[in-house]
């Protein structure tokens, strides 16, 4: 468990930096979480953050990597999965499960796969 102050509020995360209370998330906090991951958020990051949050809200689970790849192919007009994966890892070098989910304020992937 770790703690830090954000806008006068105590934010709790687990040892890996995932939010403990998903309700804490807002865009400003996403910037803070991104900084902890050494990721500088651009418009491209935000598109994926919004998409994954929307998906989680709608279906109650985080998307499969496959769905994320498909979405990226659509959003960025990329020809194939390989290009999409490259794109995702350029934005989130340590992987979407780790960094995108964390910054977007989703729970830590259960690690079953």
């Amino acid at each position, binding site marked *: 468990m770790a703690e830090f102050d954000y806008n006068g509020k105590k934010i709790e995360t687990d040892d890996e930096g995932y939010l403990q209370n998903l309700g804490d998330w807002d865009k400003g906090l996403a910037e803070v979480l991104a900084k902890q991951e050494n990721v500088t958020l651009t418009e491209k990051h935000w598109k994926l953050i919004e998409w994954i949050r929307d998906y989680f809200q709608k279906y109650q689970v985080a998307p499969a990597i496959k769905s994320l790849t498909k979405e990226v192919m659509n959003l960025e007009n990329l020809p194939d999965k390989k290009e999409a994966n490259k794109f995702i890892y350029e934005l989130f070098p340590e992987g979407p499960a780790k960094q995108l989910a964390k910054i977007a304020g989703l729970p830590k992937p*259960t*690690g*079953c*796969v």
Partner: protein
Amino acid sequence: MKFGILIKDGPYMHQAMDTAYNFIVAAMEMGHEITGVFFYNDGVYNRSNALEPPIDERNIMKLLTDIELKGVRLIVCVAAGKRRGIVNKTVCEVNEISGLGQLLDLCIASDRMITF
């Protein structure tokens, strides 16, 4: 034959673990192979290292350790275990804590999959 076993109930609310144990022992005596026992749902409680029943009661921890020593893989689902507090610190020694993929692997590797 190769049997895969799925245990979904805890050690006390239901008889499932007892039936499964007797089934496993009988199958092994008959020369069949147990590909693995996967603990899911409340089944993960069977592998808590904090169980301490009175000494004149059947001790599921001991019984399972006996079959483990005979080479049977006992696999605790990591997600179901975490939810219920059955994690590295609280699970019996030499246990495998692993993902649900292992359950599917048991389905693939076994001639028969049986749920208790």
